[in-house]
């Protein structure tokens, strides 16, 4: 079972396994893998803490109710699964500034977290605008041959590559 404790697996093995996982979620749960709706539900739950039932007056939260559902549990599961994988392969470590960020922008934790926060806002806003993320559109929707998902997935990467080009002053 030493393969379980290896730090990295081939991306093709991982990709194929995610493909098989997509068969199973559809077959057993009648759901496609996705993540970003959970953050919308989570934000509604947080607003509910402050404003109570008034949250339900927002049309968005009438369509996407602030409650724990299948996908919410999936996202919690991702945290646990990644933690287990990191732990058994000895690659778990607490880190604020990723190596690649450090090499380009230095050691400031405040800068990294501030830019990460700004990125998070775009990510949350953009994923809900597009109605999906890298998993919901990028993997699940594309394999269902949805036009909405192929367009979204292509523009995720166009936006991402152009922003990286700007941020790092050129590619590579």
């Amino acid at each position, binding site marked *: 079972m030493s393969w379980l404790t290896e730090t990295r697996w081939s991306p093709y093995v991982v990709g194929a396994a995610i493909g098989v996982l997509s068969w199973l979620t559809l077959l057993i749960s009648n759901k*496609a893998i996705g993540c970003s709706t959970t953050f919308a539900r989570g934000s509604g739950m947080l607003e509910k803490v402050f404003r109570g039932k008034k949250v339900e007056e927002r049309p968005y939260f009438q369509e996407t109710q602030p409650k724990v559902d299948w996908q919410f549990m*999936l996202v919690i599961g991702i945290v646990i699964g990644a933690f287990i994988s990191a732990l058994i392969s000895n690659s778990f470590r607490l880190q604020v500034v990723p190596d690649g960020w450090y090499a380009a922008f230095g050691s400031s934790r405040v800068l990294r977290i501030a830019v990460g926060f700004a990125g998070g806002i775009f990510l949350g806003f953009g994923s809900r605008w597009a109605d999906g993320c890298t998993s919901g559109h990028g993997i699940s929707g594309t394999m269902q041959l949805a036009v909405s998902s192929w367009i*979204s997935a292509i523009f995720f990467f166009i936006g991402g590559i152009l922003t990286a080009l700007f941020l790092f002053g050129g590619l590579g």
Partner: protein
Amino acid sequence: MKSNTKQLVWGLIFGIVFGFLLQKGGVTSYDVIVGQLRLTDFTVLRVILTAIVVGMIGIHLMREFGWVQFSVKPGSLGKNVIGGLLFGVGFALLGYCPGTIAGAIGNGQVDALVGGLSGILLGSWLLAVIYPKIRSTILQKGDFGDLTLPGLLKVNQWVVIIPLAAVLVGVMLVF
């Protein structure tokens, strides 16, 4: 167990497997994701395209057998092009996406937990706040509904699936 509770447990189990795979694939790492966007590391592309090829063939076969149903998301140019670009900006700034950020948190990334997660929650909430203003305007621009590629081309699904699988494998051989 009630069927609803049972499905929540299945969600958790599938999530644990998914998170385990994402971490093993290296795609919970900022460096790997940003490396893809800078076109120096093609791990993300390999994982996604392999998942699409394997998943696509399997789920379409299962649908032919009548075992599963699809839930194709309706879309529009206003929704998917603009939303996609905004998402991309965040993807590069943060270096994680909504799924891999959960994996990065499990991997011990404090930047994902403190900066990224609070940002995603705020961004999602902001969209919910402005939603009534964009719902029937910009999100409807260039609406094409729940169109699929075989529907667009008016062909049998396998006429799309087989060449597409070949193209995606070809792309992976090049990169």
